[in-house]
């Protein structure tokens, strides 16, 4: 198994938002990756930038590396990597890909109308 080598590479596991203050409409986001592939890294940086821009202060990002916790793939029905799951607010939404199409990410997160 290659899990260990990838995990020890210090993949971004849990990243706390800059401001931990919780609001009623807090966003709980979960990013599923499989090791530090270029696509995963790109997705993570895209996500971070986007959240800072649109959700500053009320979001939470959890990064799950499936190479470390493969059993978690089943729970959120993950097939594609990277996948961003919006756990909150409900309903659950899934966004796949490296998140480089910002407009589609915003639509996926239901943020486009808020603008």
């Amino acid at each position, binding site marked *: 198994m290659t899990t260990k080598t990838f995990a020890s590479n210090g993949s971004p596991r849990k990243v706390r938002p800059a401001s931990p203050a919780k609001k009623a409409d807090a966003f709980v986001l979960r990013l599923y990756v499989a090791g530090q592939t270029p696509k995963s890294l790109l997705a993570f940086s895209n996500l971070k930038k986007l959240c800072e821009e649109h959700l500053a202060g009320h979001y939470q990002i959890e990064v799950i590396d499936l*190479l470390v916790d*493969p059993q978690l793939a089943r729970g959120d029905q993950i*097939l594609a990597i990277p996948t961003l799951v919006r756990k909150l607010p409900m309903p659950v939404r*899934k966004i*796949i890909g490296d998140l*480089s*199409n910002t407009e*589609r990410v915003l639509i996926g997160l239901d943020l486009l109308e808020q603008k």
Partner: protein
Amino acid sequence: MPPTKKKQPSVRQLPKAPTGIQGLDEITCGGLPRGRPTLVCGGAGCGKTLLAMEFLVRGAIQFNEPGVFMAFEETTHDLTNNVSSLGFDLEDLVRRKKLVIDYVYIERSEIEETGEYDLEGLFIRLGHAIDSIGAKRVVLDTVESLFSGLPNPLILRAELRRLFRWLKDKGVTAIITGERGDEALTRQGLEEYVSDCVIVLDHRISEQVSSRRLRVVKYRGSTHGTNEYPFLIDETGFSVVAVTSLGLKQEASTKRVPTGVTRLDAMLGGAGYYLGSSVLVSGTAGTGKSSLAAHFVDGACRRGERAVYFAFEESPSQIMRNMRSIGIDLQQWVRKGLLHFQATRPTFFGLEMHLATMHKAVTAFKPHVVVIDPINSFIIGGNEVDVRAMLMRLVDFMKMKQVTCLFTNLTSSGTSGNTDLAVSSLIDTWLQLRDMEIGGERNRGISLLKSRGMSHSNQIREFLLTDRGVDLRDVYVGPEGVLTGSARLAQEARETAAQTAHEQDVERKRIELEGKRRALEAQIAVMRADLDAQEAETLSRLEQEQGRGRQLAKERVSMGLSRKADVGGKTTGQRRQAE
């Protein structure tokens, strides 16, 4: 040494993973290619999922190869319920770590694509499931749903190609199911990626009756049966009717089974059919096929044997009523539990289901004799080939079980030696009933077309249905042809008259002769009496003569004595007598 023995047949053969599915392993010469993916494709509802599931379940139970079922279409719960009707307890297998069912849920509307992605998540899930129980077998059912659930088919194609390669590297024997496409084998052309073994399932409706078939389209590096094989799905799961695989290894019995009609037994070498043979009774409408079948069943039950009557045209009560009219009471055997009727319309379900139900009834009831009345009603449209295959399978099965089987077959054209089904090669004893139209009436005739392995009569007999059952009579064959019915009776009367006249003639001649003899004897008696009388007279005369001679001698002696003559006097006396 067992290892060398085991190696020998598979010297140049691919390693294979037996499916445990009846018939499929024969067709594929041992199973699916081990460590490689196999594509199973077919239309909706043709049994892909079931085949795949049975592959896993049997693998887990019979071959100790745990399996992973990745379901893209049905939830774990649905799947468990669906196959529980086939006797598969998935929950138990999951508990014993023999099986992992992973339901993959994809909903297009919930997914937003925002750039490049891959299916690493799927790989990880599958890899995790495989590793968690050490699975040797994997099923992906139906992986093509990814195409409807995820955007960007180009990525999907590349990823699927990678997936199949990955499965090979993992060394698992995999089944990938795919929905049949319009032109290609699968909608998404999966056959391009999975090219080691391709099995196509088919569910055809012909004349409103469905039949299922299976075909191994391709099997790299192995020989395989190339035909389309019918298969069935019943309570015991999937079974492929691999006709060619049955072989001809049945034991041939020399025991005989009476036909129920004494004179018919006599036609068949005096003892009846062979045990475990297949008998065909063919004939046109109303020639008494069912009656002969009823006799056969009745005879078996009378001997205390068990019988199953598969009726496809009449209901049991109708058969029993009709047979009562010729003096056969089948009801009593049903009541005693010796006879079992199973009546269905041929159109009720497909051929394979018929085969399966017959199979089941025979296995459950363990009959000695079986009647199938009639076989031609299975022919609906142009499915003769299927029916023939089914009958072949049935005959082989019956032979294996040593069940004597009687089929009836309605033929359309009078006396031709063909059945509508080319089943004659399956049949050991073939009785033909026919109509004979002579002198303005129709009569029935019976003849033996063939009877393998016994000397049998080659004569046509007249076949009478009386109120005491079937009766066979000799027919008259003369310059006027074959005579039956009243023509036969007339001929019989004529012959009786001629016979009587002849007998009388003989008697008269005998009496005449007797008279002559007596007259002659009387004459002889008279002559003998005459002779006797003459003889007596002659004798008495001789006696007298002799008496007189002696007297003379005496007188001479006494005279000599008185004359004092010497002994020489005797000589003189004798000489005188001679003079």
